[in-house]
């Protein structure tokens, strides 16, 4: 199908082209720095604004930020470890399992997905 149209940026929809800066070198970096700045602002905000909680622990300064960061980091690391135990080849359950359907690269413009 359309998987193999020549990679010409002019053929992209307007909205797609508006996002293209993401792909340019430094695009990702820009996103990341924006994130850092936002995080910093939030820490500042935490001390500026009054917040009301139901539980005492919520009173702890930047509790939510810490919780978010560390729990997610722990989660990701945990996943990496767990993968060692859980991972199996993709034909583990059945040779024709859903995970085995050919990828678009493999089937190379052979199927009409409009069916």
């Amino acid at each position, binding site marked *: 199908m359309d998987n193999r149209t020549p990679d010409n940026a002019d053929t992209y929809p307007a909205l797609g082209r508006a996002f293209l800066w993401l792909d340019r070198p430094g695009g990702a970096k820009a996103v990341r720095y924006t994130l850092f700045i936002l*995080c910093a602002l939030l820490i500042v905000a935490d001390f500026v604004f*009054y917040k009301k909680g139901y*539980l005492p622990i919520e009173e702890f300064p930047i509790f939510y930020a810490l919780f978010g960061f*560390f729990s997610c980091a722990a989660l*990701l690391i945990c996943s990496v470890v767990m993968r060692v135990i859980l991972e199996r080849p*993709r034909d583990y359950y059945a040779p*024709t399992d859903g*995970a085995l359907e050919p990828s678009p690269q493999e089937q190379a413009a052979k199927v009409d997905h409009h069916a």
Partner: protein
Amino acid sequence: MLDALPTAFLFFLAALILPILPRGPLRSLLVLIVPVVAGLAVYALPMGNLVQAEFFGFTLDLMRVDPLSRVFALLFCIAAFLGGLFAWHLRDTVQQVAMLLYVGAAIGAVFAGDLVTLFFYWEGTAISSVFLIWARRSEASYFSGMRYLTIQIGSGVMLLAGIILHYSATGSIAFDAMTLDSPASWLIFIAFGIKAAFILLNNWMIDAYPSATVTGTVILSAFTTKLAIYALARGFAGTELLIYIGAATAVYPLIWAQLENDLRRVVAYALNLQQGFMFVGIGIGTELALNGAIAHAFVGVLYGMLLFMTLGAVMYRTGTSRATDLGGIYKTMPLTALFCLVGAASISAFPLFAGFVSKSLIISAAAKGSHYVVWGCLLLASAGGFLVCGLKVPFFAFFSKDGSLRPREAPGHMLLVMGLTAVLCVLAGTNPTALYALLPYDVSYQPYSTGHIITQLQLLLFSALAFALLLPTRLYPRPNPTVNLDFDWVYRRLLLGAIGLLAIPVRGFFRALDRFKAGPLKALIRTLYNTYGPMARTSQFWPTGAMVLWIAILLGVTLLVSYAS
């Protein structure tokens, strides 16, 4: 006018009419119009038990309309409309009919005032929805559908057993609040739990959703689990056990969702996690919490459908939803990518998006009840959920590395319905009073306090920070094209292995049977064929003389018998 007709029958009627209509837009239009009519009808319904039927001496309440059932029925009508619009391109009678029957059964179950009616519709949703999986017409989807059907029917059988016990104990089939004090209510609880995807009973969801067709997944995600939420809210509100089940359900899928490669499965895990929130809400059972659970179910349908729609559109264009195969397609599918981001923001409960206003209700209720551990679990699930669904799905589907895929933008009707759903998500998020007005209880709750917004943003953005920092390192589990063991390993492998052991004597029996088939049985059949086959004496023409002789003999014997006696 429509008071006398159970709303579900509108859908069944449409399912009957649909095959008669010519293939094409007319059918799609029917699928689209029925939910609108039904929705308007439901909105106008007065409260009370509207329709009753006699069945084997039971009085069945087909239409119990109260605030709780009405909000779910409305939700299902909206979901059916969105799903129908998404499936506009569909030219598959099986899927369209199954869709109508499925929605009808779900709405019927919601309005069921007694357990018997509930059971019928309960099984109806199972049987009709499996066709949405089978309609993909691949071997994998066939087996997946079989597993789905087995589990769903199993839920139905447990429900039936529970109903029978309940009836024999109490003499009533009314479907009202129950307590977990008898085997009957336990059975019913577990039956609900299977459909609601309790922890360890959840694998059918992960297995079945991604196995369905592009449109089937969207439809499936909206009804079965939410129907179970309704049933739990009706029957087991305030059951403390549900709080802990909910907390566990919310945390359990996080790791598997991280590891999963198929993005539709990731979304399924994320939706499963959201179910946990609802269980907690129902388990706490205060009006605030129940409202929260119902509101969360409501918006859960919206963003669940939105996410599956965007991934469905991707799949429709590229044929895959696997993280390893996708990436970089935001360039040619920017609108879809945008809608996916809206969905992701909604499920992650970003302020201004749908999930925020409902999730806050539940977390606040948990905190209010001083359930420390539960509250922590929910917080963890919020953060982790954002990590998987809010970041992983859009990132790996649309951004990440730039592959060679350059699919066209999604078809017009898909864009339209995704846009519509996205707008609904944002509307619900920005205008919570309208959402709260639909809920059964009057609760004054203001999600948009400065403190709340800041804490929530902190939680989410620092999660994002962790993601951003770990992504380039080896500490981030990048998707691999592999299978990860989950609890379903128990019944797909362990149980099969155990059955295999049991099978040895059975196999011996069948081998003996085979030998018998090859030897004596074959000889028997040959003898039978020679005696009774088309060329045999019994089935050939007989000479008239022989026949007459038989008459004479029969006469002789008859005379003999009657004289001798």
